[in-house]
């Protein structure tokens, strides 16, 4: 029970946060100049005041704010994020259609950043004056100061224009024929540059934190005991020390969901990756408000659920987390 109660509390709190996001979403829609009726009228080439009034009535825009808000929340709870007038599709369908591409990009980039970051962190902690340390220092400076879209364009210039190794844009080459493996290889080839670009932001964070926590753990008593027992250096570092050094890195990675979404928007734009970020930018340019707010809500949902899961994972791998609070 002691383990379950704080989790139930967290879940209840996550739901409250979600409803708060919905209220904010709806209020912004309400406060913004122009409403859906204006958008529809504009899209159909103008309409007189009477028709606009009729559209408002049809969409329930003449009702008081709180009734509209309650209806909106009710709709979202039924997985209905509204209708996109630009794409003429339910927003939920649009998001689900673009989601796999974004997930593929984001998850691959996170895995790459975590693996390389942790390895760099471990090697630079073991040898503070070695090559890995210089790489970590360089990455930390570059990863913070270089705008991610610029990094992407530089990679694009270098590795698909000057040296044509990778495709310039998109996710799938329609001219590629063949079975599953040929297609998978094609997507993988398209994936390389966007993944490296997106990973570059997080690589800096993870490698620096991993180095710091590894240095701390390597100086602790139990590591000295393990060494004194005569265990091999590699075994001590990777089996004993790394386990404890990883905890802060996992925490940090779990807090990056919001940054991941932001980074994905820029990276997808640079590489014309057909995911949620591209959809967000297109719907903003097209002034397709239901889609924009749908994506904002969906990303907040992902961040909240992601934070919740990180919390659970940390409680499972490190029993100290729950007892401290």
């Amino acid at each position, binding site marked *: 029970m002691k383990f379950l109660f704080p989790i139930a509390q967290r879940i209840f709190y996550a739901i409250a*946060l979600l409803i*708060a*996001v919905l209220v*904010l979403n709806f209020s*912004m*829609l309400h*406060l*913004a*100049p122009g409403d859906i009726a204006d958008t529809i009228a504009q899209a159909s080439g103008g309409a007189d005041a009477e028709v606009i009034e009729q559209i408002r009535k049809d969409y329930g825009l003449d009702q008081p704010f709180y009734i509209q808000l309650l209806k909106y929340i009710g709709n979202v709870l039924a997985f209905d994020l509204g209708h996109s007038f630009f794409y003429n599709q339910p927003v939920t369908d649009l998001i689900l259609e673009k989601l796999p591409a974004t997930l593929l990009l984001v998850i691959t980039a996170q895995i790459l950043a975590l693996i390389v970051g942790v390895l760099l962190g471990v090697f630079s902690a073991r040898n503070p004056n070695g090559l890995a340390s210089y790489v970590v220092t360089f990455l930390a*400076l570059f990863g*913070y*100061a*270089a*705008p*991610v*879209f*610029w990094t992407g*364009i*530089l990679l*694009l*210039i270098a590795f698909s*224009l000057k040296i044509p190794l990778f495709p310039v844009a998109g996710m799938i080459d329609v001219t590629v024929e063949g079975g599953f493996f040929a297609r998978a290889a094609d997507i993988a080839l398209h994936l390389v540059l966007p993944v490296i670009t997106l990973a570059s932001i997080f690589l800096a964070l993870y490698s620096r934190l991993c180095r*710091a926590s590894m240095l701390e753990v390597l100086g602790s008593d139990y590591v000295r005991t393990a060494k004194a027992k005569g265990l091999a250096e590699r075994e001590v570092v990777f089996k004993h020390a790394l386990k404890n050094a990883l905890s802060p890195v996992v925490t940090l990675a779990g807090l990056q*969901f*919001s*940054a991941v*979404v*932001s*980074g994905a*928007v*820029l990276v997808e*734009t*640079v590489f014309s990756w057909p995911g949620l970020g591209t959809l*967000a*930018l297109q719907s*903003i*340019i097209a*002034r397709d*408000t239901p889609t*924009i*707010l749908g*994506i*904002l809500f969906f*990303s*907040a949902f992902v*961040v*909240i659920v992601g*934070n919740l899961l990180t919390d659970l994972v940390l409680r499972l791998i490190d029993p100290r987390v729950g007892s401290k609070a």
Partner: protein
Amino acid sequence: MSSDAEKEFIEKARSPFSEAFEMFRKNHAAVAGLVVLIFIVLAGIFGPYVYPGDPFEMVWAPFSPPGDEGYFLGTDYLGRDLASMLIHGARVSIAIGLSAAFLTVFIGITIGALAGFYRGWVEEVLMRITEFFQVLPTLLFSMVIVALFGATLPMITLAIGLVSWPAVARITRSEFLRIRELEYVMAARACGVSNGKLIFKVILPNALPPIIVQAALMVGSAILFEAGLSFLGLTDPNIVSWGQIIGSNREYILDASYTVTVPGLAIFVTVLAISLVGDGLNDALNPKLRQR
């Protein structure tokens, strides 16, 4: 203690300010960053007098490489002088960076100080609000604000400020939580000092060092943020900025890659200089953290 040794001791004791300055000066990277930063700020202030006129004006054939006809950075896809655009853009980037960071720090200190000072339900409510703003993906949220309420410079500044303050609020709160329990604060409280004075005159000055470092870094991230927004085209189309040059030229990297690499380099160098200065300030102002 003889009077000579006493004199020497007094001479050696310096004001905290000069000690911090000394620490900063010893950090060569930070000094180099500061020099670069001063140069960029001067370019932003006086550059437009060296390059008078409209940076959007077509001056020469499009895609002229750097050095052609005296345009030492060349021209972009519309034949506009890249050097002139870069100089005019510096002003916008720095102005937005500074004002957005100011707004961020202002909101962050207010929320963090109130939460850390009053504790109880005030802290509970304010920290819930802070967490709420942390779950909204920053770039996406500011894109939505700019899209719904108009792409003007004040709105962009507001959007950046609105999404970035939680970090400052958290630092301020934790500093306030620590300092409010110290003896000199208790002494001031016992003397009947009002809450307002306790917050602004007793606690805040001592909480400032980490906040100043964070504020310096905030200028850098605000510049990156503005660059990202204007790269995506979400900016005032009549005002030139570094990100906007990259965004509008990125279709033409095959013909003229320098129109994208050079403005990006400007952003990179500026933010790098700011982060080096931030590191130097951190060393100078937080001597306890120096071992980390």
